[in-house]
Structure formats: structure tokens, C-alpha cells
């Protein structure tokens, strides 16, 4: 094999042309590698959320009992979700903010489907703590929204980052209003 190859290329006599044996070796290793990958995938993928975990991925919340200026916290996918019935003043202030003042510029109407109800994932975008500001009497930060006690991030009345180490605004989860009183999150 190799000899006949080198005969065809006399200029490259010292270069070993790949022969049949090299091909077999490479093909064997390639097949073994494919097999190993095919075996590894199910073992890794089983770490992903199971079907029953995914089935719990949305919840319905009755919001008719939330008074103006009040907040509730519900659990969605194991995380707190803040639902705040905002006061007119808070909505005005959220809308009046100059986008140039924001680290993660976003207009308030893009963050709240109905302006009076703000729905946020209550997890600081810095390192995952739950910010304060849901209960009356809690610190709400310099911008009257939420304040994360772990590393001092301040969020405004639209849940946007204004000060502190967090890089982005509080996340808005996917949600829609099934009726005036029921919101489905997820």
C-alpha cells in the first residue's frame, strides 16, 4: 500500500502517505468516540429538568386582592416573583425617568403590560439574592423600588437597576392576564 503510494509521488519519498491501516485506526477511534458521546449524552441530559419539573413551569395568581401600593410575592419555578399594584405616583415616576440615566435602558411600558401591575422575578441580577422592598417598612433603596441587602443594588419603581453592582434590570417573567383578576406566569 504505502509503497505503491510513494512510487506515484517520487518527489515525496520521505513522506509517509496515509495507508489503509491508518484509515482503519482513525475510523476505529472515530467510531469509539461517537459511541462514547452517544452514551455520555443521556447521562448528562438526565441532569436537565425532568418532565414533571417542566410541567410545573407556570402558575395562575389571583391579583384582585392586592390593594394599590401593596405587593405580593409568589413562588414560580422555585423563585420569588414580585407582583406590585403600583400607585399612580410610582407609574408617573417610572415613566418620567430619562433613559440616559439608566444602566440597562428600558422604557416602563415595555416592562409592564398593564401599568398598574408590575410583575418581576424577585432575584437580584447581581448574584441571586432576594431584594428588600416587598413588605411595608422594608428598605426600598434610593429610588423607592427595591434594595438588595447583599451587595447594595438599588432598583427603581419599574424594577430597573439604578445604583450598585447589579448589571441588568430585574427580570420580567413571561406572563399574560387571563382576566382582569387572574395573571398566568410562565
Amino acid at each position: 500500500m504505502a509503497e505503491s503510494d510513494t512510487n506515484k509521488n517520487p518527489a515525496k519519498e520521505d513522506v509517509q502517505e496515509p495507508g489503509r491501516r491508518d484509515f482503519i485506526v482513525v475510523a476505529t477511534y472515530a467510531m469509539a468516540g461517537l459511541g462514547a458521546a452517544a452514551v455520555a449524552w443521556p447521562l448528562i441530559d438526565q441532569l436537565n429538568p425532568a418532565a414533571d419539573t417542566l410541567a410545573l413551569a407556570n402558575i395562575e395568581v389571583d391579583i384582585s386582592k392586592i390593594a394599590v401600593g401593596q405587593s405580593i410575592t409568589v413562588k414560580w419555578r422555585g423563585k420569588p416573583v414580585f407582583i406590585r399594584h403600583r400607585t399612580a405616583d410610582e407609574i408617573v415616576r417610572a415613566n418620567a425617568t430619562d433613559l440616559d440615566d439608566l444602566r440597562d435602558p428600558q422604557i416602563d411600558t415595555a416592562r409592564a403590560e398593564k401599568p398598574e401591575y408590575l410583575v418581576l422575578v424577585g432575584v437580584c441580577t447581581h448574584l441571586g439574592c432576594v431584594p428588600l422592598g416587598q413588605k411595608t417598612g422594608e428598605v426600598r433603596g434610593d429610588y423607592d423600588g427595591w434594595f438588595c441587602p447583599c451587595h447594595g443594588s438599588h432598583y427603581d419603581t419599574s424594577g430597573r437597576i439604578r445604583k450598585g453592582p447589579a448589571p441588568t434590570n430585574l427580570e420580567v417573567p413571561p406572563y399574560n392576564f387571563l382576566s382582569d383578576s387572574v395573571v398566568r406566569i410562565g
Partner: protein
Amino acid sequence: MSANQFKSPVVRWIDHRLPVFSMLHHTAHDYPTPKNLNYMWNFGSLAGLSLAIMIVTGIVLAMSYTAHVDYAFDSVERIMRDVNHGWMIRYIHMNTASFFFIVIYLHMFRGLYYGSYKAPRELLWMLGVVIFLLMMATAFMGYVLPWGQMSFWGATVITNLFSAIPYVGESIVTLLWGGFSVDNATLNRFFSLHYLMPFVIAGVVVLHIVALHRFGSNNPIGIDTKGPQDTISFHPYYTIKDVFGIAVFLLLLAMVVFFFPNAMGHPDNYIPANAMQTPAHIVPEWYFLPFYAILRAVPDKLGGVLLMFGAIAVLFILPWLDRSPVRSARFRPLFRIFFWLFFVNAIALGYLGGKPAEGIYVILSRVATAWYFLHFLAILPILSMFEITKPLPKSISEPVLKGNSKRAGPLGAGLEPAE
């Protein structure tokens, strides 16, 4: 190969300080192996592969399993239905357990046929019996974890074996249970031990291999290798042979996992455990059936338990029961007949263990049990005194090169000048 012959400078650097590569190279590459091993010598590597599959799939299953009487059954069903690929991982774990025992039984029968337990390999054999015992304990506790009817009643029956011990039996059973019946405490300790045991087995496997490499593998002729002309290096000759065996093994395993995953299980184990109701016909997993038959053959509680454990204990002293200096059955015409009788008898015990303990089955179980012990305790010692063995070849090469020229085949052809 010495350390500085490794190609990669990184490997050389590490090996100079931590000679793991030299050790591996010595164990799995250079290791001089008799050149006449047949396919019966594949089952050692297959057993190692089975252990590896069991440990990997088991660790993964433990991530989704809940060891609690109220949740265990449901958590296993959740693995089957909801966890990604969970059904496959569990079926692989279940069926590899069965395949592991098939492989181990063939490995043991190989040793019995070719006299691999004889001097100087007695400890090698005894370590193997230890591994077998640990495997049985591990398999039993693993079978309890899904907390189905067979799990529960298997656990009850097997732990009750210890109540046969005079005076302290009841206290020992209470200790094993952590209560007054098989319950949550039992399930939790079984889960803990089921997770631990495979690693203990892996440790004994290392000792087994160290003992093996002290004198090298036995071979179908059963005579010692006389030098380099009788051996070939483990790699690539036996690695490639082992890989071929592994490919066949995995094909069969895949066939069972994907087409007959419950063929070797019992449907009653898909009924949640019920402490108030024993299934009509309870049987252990198939690999315990021969020993189960021995247990039931004896009409006495303590006697049955002693004989069942004795059936394994007798394997420990086998090297001193069979004192014939000739290892391989090829040169022992009478031994060979009795070996196959023993083999058929062992299969018969397995069959009888799965039948109800009534009528003719009880009588046949007693005959087969008696034969099992007769084989080890009477036939083997007597044979080693009176059997006239065939003359042994002078070396491993001899029968191939001249003694049997018709069967010489490609090795004989190798003597001719290559074309």
C-alpha cells in the same frame, strides 16, 4: 517500556514524579499473557466493564431516587416517566446487574474447568469468591430500593435467614432492620450500603488483579508459561480480543435493554410494597435461584441457611479439595465428565429454585443439593487421588507446533517463510 519512552513530554514529566503511566503501561500494555487464551478468558474484562456500567448508571439513578418508604416507589416511577432518559438508565442498571451475574458465572465456570484456582492462584480465586459474595449482597440490597412487593418480601425473607442463628438470631434481625419489621430504617441503610458496596468491590477487584499479575493468567492447557516464547503482550493482542468481546456483550445488553427490559425481572415488583400481603409465589432474582433451591431443599430452618451459605463457603476451600496437580480439564478425562455433570446440576438447581416448593420439585432439589456438595466434598478429592490424567505438553507452543499439526492453523503457517 521505561518512563522516558513516552512520546508526550507532559506525560514524561508527570510519570517521572508520579509513575502512574508506567504502572498502567506495565499492567495493560506490556503484561505478558499466555498466547493460547481462548474466548473464555474474555469474561474478566467484561466483569470489569459491567461494574463500571453499574457504578456510572447507579450514581446517576441516585440523583433522582428518594430513600423513603413513602416516596421510593414513586421516585422510581418518576425516573421511568419524567427524568430525561431515566427509563433507559434504569433499564441499563437493572439488566446490567443480570448480565454481570451471567458474566461472573461464566468466569467462575471457566476457572472451575481450567483449574484456575490451583496453586499458586489460590488467593486469586478466593478474592474472586469475596467479590461474588459482595456482588450478591449489593444486588440484593439494590433490588430492595424500588420498594415494590418483591423488594419488600425479598428483604423480609433474606433478612429473616439470620433469625435461624441460635440464641442471638432474633436480636441480629432486629439490628439489621432497625425496627421490628422491614421499614423505613431498613430501606435507608440498604440504600447507604448499596451505594458503598460497589466501591468496596472495586477495591477487591484491584487486589484480584494484583494477585492475577503475580503469576499471570492461567491458560487452556493449564501449564505454566516457560518464557517469552509462550507469551504475547497484552496490548494489542488481548486488548483487541477484549474489545471484540465487549462489542458482542454490548450488543446483547442493548437488545435486552431496548426490547426485553423486564424479561429478567418480576412483574410483582411493579406493585408498591404492602406489609400486610405477601405475593402468592415469591422468588428471588434469577441469579440467586440455585442457592434459593438449596435453602428450600432442607426441611430445617438452621440447616437450610447453613447449607445455602455452605454452598459458597465450599468455594473458598476448593483449592484444597481438588489436589490434582493437573489444572486443565483437557487432560483430566474423568474430571471433565464430572465438571459437565456439575454444570448441568447447577442449572437444574436454578430451575428448581424458580419452581414452587412442593411435590417432585422438593425431591429433585434435594438430589441436586446433595450432588452439589458431593461434587466438591467427595468427587473432587477422590478424583485427585485416583484419576489417570493424560500426558501434559512440554510447553504452550508444543501442541500447536508439532503435537497436533492438523489443528495448527495460522500459527503453524506462521513458521513458513512469509510471502
